[in-house]
């Protein structure tokens, strides 16, 4: 190709042809470089938590991505396209304007289809709850639905004190059997204290601002239809094996579904219920 080597002759055709060829090569290489550069930057900026959620959300089954307003029946059908982050959703405020669900006073417990779901706190779609403890500190824990699905975890890996959490990012890890479950953090903030399963909570988090944005979390009257929906999803996820953990018919809810039906592909069920691909 280089002139003078073994009498290679350049013609206009060469210029056109090689021009096109090298343009293609350059486009491929530069696009690849851009992707590499951007991922490097994102990684440097600690955006991988957000990105991971975005990526996982993309891969969730459609049934797991239903908009909260469809769950409550406010809208016929809507699939969330904001990774469950209603803070950036343009549609969410319009619904809020019509009817905003509110928290119940502290200590108010409610049994929803047999699950203990206190209505004094916010719930994340990944089955965690958030409760404001005052002075900018929030307690974060696994909700009753989540607890009963897993039973007693084999191991819990909590983030160290001082770790910054991202909303929808990794909250903590649960290990059960061979499954490693990522429990999504419902809010953003810095971990100030860690708890245990016995404490009933796992993390105490201090937000950057005294009041952390919680618009994306479920609350109040949204809980019941949501749990209803989750039971349906659970039923669907479990049913291929035909195991009756279905409890919406008024039966007694088991405390440890895993123990009850070990033959179920719990790994898949948990993944689906805890919103990870």
């Amino acid at each position, binding site marked *: *190709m*280089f*002139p*003078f*080597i*073994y009498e290679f002759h350049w013609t206009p055709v060469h210029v056109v042809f090689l021009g096109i060829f090298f343009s293609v090569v350059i486009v491929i290489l530069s696009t690849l470089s851009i992707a590499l550069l951007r991922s490097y930057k994102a990684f440097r900026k600690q955006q991988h938590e957000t990105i991971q959620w975005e990526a996982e959300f993309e891969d969730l089954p459609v049934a797991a991505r239903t908009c909260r307003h469809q769950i409550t029946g406010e809208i016929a059908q809507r699939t969330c396209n904001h990774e469950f982050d209603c803070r950036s959703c343009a549609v969410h405020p319009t619904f809020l304007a019509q009817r905003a669900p509110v928290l119940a006073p502290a200590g108010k417990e409610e049994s929803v289809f047999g699950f203990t779901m206190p209505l004094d706190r916010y719930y994340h779609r990944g089955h965690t709850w958030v409760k404001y403890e005052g002075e900018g500190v929030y307690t974060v824990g696994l909700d009753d639905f989540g607890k009963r699905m897993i039973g007693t975890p084999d191991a819990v890996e909590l983030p160290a004190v001082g770790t910054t959490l991202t909303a929808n990012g990794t909250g903590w890890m649960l290990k059960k059997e061979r499954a490693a479950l990522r429990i999504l953090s419902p809010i953003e903030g810095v971990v100030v204290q860690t708890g245990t399963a016995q404490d009933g909570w796992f993390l105490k988090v201090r937000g950057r601002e005294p009041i952390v944005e919680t618009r994306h979390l479920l609350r109040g009257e949204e809980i019941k239809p949501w749990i209803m929906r989750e039971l349906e999803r659970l039923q669907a996820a479990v049913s291929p094996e035909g195991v009756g953990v279905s409890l919406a018919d008024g039966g007694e809810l088991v405390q440890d579904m895993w123990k009850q039906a070990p033959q179920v592909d719990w790994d898949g069920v948990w993944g689906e219920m805890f919103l990870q691909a």
Partner: protein
Amino acid sequence: MNITRRELLTFAGGSILGALFTPIPWKLLDDSAIWTQNWSLIPRLPRGPETFTFTGCTLCPGGCAVKARRVNGHPVSLVGVAGHSLSNGILCPMGIAGHHLAYHPLRLRRPFAFTGKGADSPLVPSTLDEIASNLAPMLKDIRSSSSRGTIAVLDQRPGRVLSDLYRKFVSNFPGGIYAVAPGSEDPTLTTLRALCNTTEGTLGYDLENTRVILSFGAPLVDGWSTPGRTVQLLQNRNQNGLKLIQVEGVQSRTALQADTWLPIMPGTEAALALAIGGVIVRQNLFPAKIEKTSPDFRTYKTLVSKFEPEDVAAVCGIPSSVISETAHALASNPSVVMSGYDPAGGPLDNATETVIAGLNVLLGNIGRTGGISLHAPIPSPGATTSPAVGLAQVPDHSVRLLLIDGAESGHTYPLSLLKRKLTADGGTVVMLSPYLSSRSALADYLVPSPAAFESLEEISTPPGARRSSFALSLPLLKQPDTTVDPATLLAKLAGASGLPSVGAETVESCLRQRTHDIWLSKRGTLATPTGSSQTPVMAMASEEELWKGLSEGGWWVDNMQDKQVNPRLTLLGLMTPDRYDKASAPALDTTGTLKLIPFGWRNATMTASVAPVLSKLFQESHLRSLGGRVHINPSTLAANALSDGAYVKISTHSGNMTAQAVADPSVIPGVIHAIVGPSPNNTASKDRPEAEGILGLCAVRDDGSWRITEATIAKA
């Protein structure tokens, strides 16, 4: 000046960047990619000074002149010598690759003995002295009495000084035989010599002045005598007016080039010749003197009267009008009638050869311009005590010790022809040869003789030549130390048997002797290789001048006047008319028996006889058929429920073998045209050479011919 690390790095980086804009790294890359493919399998080319040597080809008796291009002393290519008076600058395909033959994979590189006669007996390395001492008791025994068989030398190329040496050697033994191999002489001329009752001089064809050649299968354009002679004559037909009538049962290359092709049913050639003779006799087309000078003219006339063209036409498939036309063409022009000696099919039978040769007598061709001349042989010390006999004439079971010369006539013959000459115990066979060939299957001792262009040899008069000639074949290749000069072998054997010296101990000294004889005779002229100048021997100051001229590739040609031919020429010689009774009977057999006719191409009839590069013709194209294939007319194939390319089993009284059939419309129906040799690339067996093949199936008749054998074919 301080150079910082940074500056150094900048400099290095800049250099690399700069170098990328020069062709150097790219060319290096290119070259190294090419280099990766130039592994040791690709030979290094020879380098060195380029020289040219004039020499002569000794692969067959044709003796074409060769100009060799040599690099660093090694010959890299051979071409004919343009302007050469005898070979006209033409080489045949074998000759053009002749310099490769010395490196043939089947080349013998040292003397060997076989441990037994069996097909599985291995080759055991031996030495010349060992062989001589092993043979000594037998040689002494033969010298004292020939009752238990005698010694014979089979010469494949008679007429050389070495031939004289062989004759001298065997004459020391009672009953010692000097035999010439089939194909080493022209069959028509040999027969004619018998009809002429002459032993003086050599017969030759005056083709240059002939107008009509009637050839009974002689391969005139494809390996007959010196190719340059006939090919050029035929190519210049529009100037010299020559007509070629080819009588052959296959449309050979010669038949394709002939003016007239007479597609004859093989085996009926005698009938055709007699019918032509009959037309000539009946219509008085012969010279009047023949009637008086030929003692058997009456007998001949009676004989040919039985061969009316109409009857013969039915037998041989040639229309009577054509027979008549041919007779007229022969009689009204200077003409020559010759027979074909196929390199593998051998001569026609004795009776047929006789009537073919006899046509020349009848036409008065002997001793006439454009006919057949008698000329003086190359000057020779004479005193040759043993007469030459054809191999067929050697009494059966008479040879106890056979010595086969290493030179090749380019022709082959069935081993059974040779085998039956040996004593009942199989005799002892010493074979001089550059290669392991199918013939070495008979040998007890193999003595490696020099390959082509490895030693000083001679080019003596080619068969059928008009004049005697002589030249030297100068070596182009270094002769391996282990090869044995034939003269040295003779000296060793003579020494071992207590004989006095038989003469020169090397071929070179023999050739010096012959040069000396020529110089003494003062005959002929020496031409430079390209014919640019000619010097009469008479004008030469010394013998050394002649030798020097010959050593530079010069060519000696005799200038003696033709000899007088014995006027009392017979037409049938010793052949009795009743031998032709069968010839008039219809030859077409419809019982399903086919005629197996072996066919060969001169010099290409044996495994080792062609250079590996000849694979281009035999293996890598359809130009020449590989040995072992049989060409059969499609109609005959179909009649036997066979198809083109099928493997067929050929059966004769001698056995059977499997061959691949080739549907070939150029072969007459009813004939199996069997190709003998070569398989240029067959190096599979280096011990006992491969089986004889087709020739092993051939029936050898009492007269030594094996041209036609009855055979049947079936799907293999």
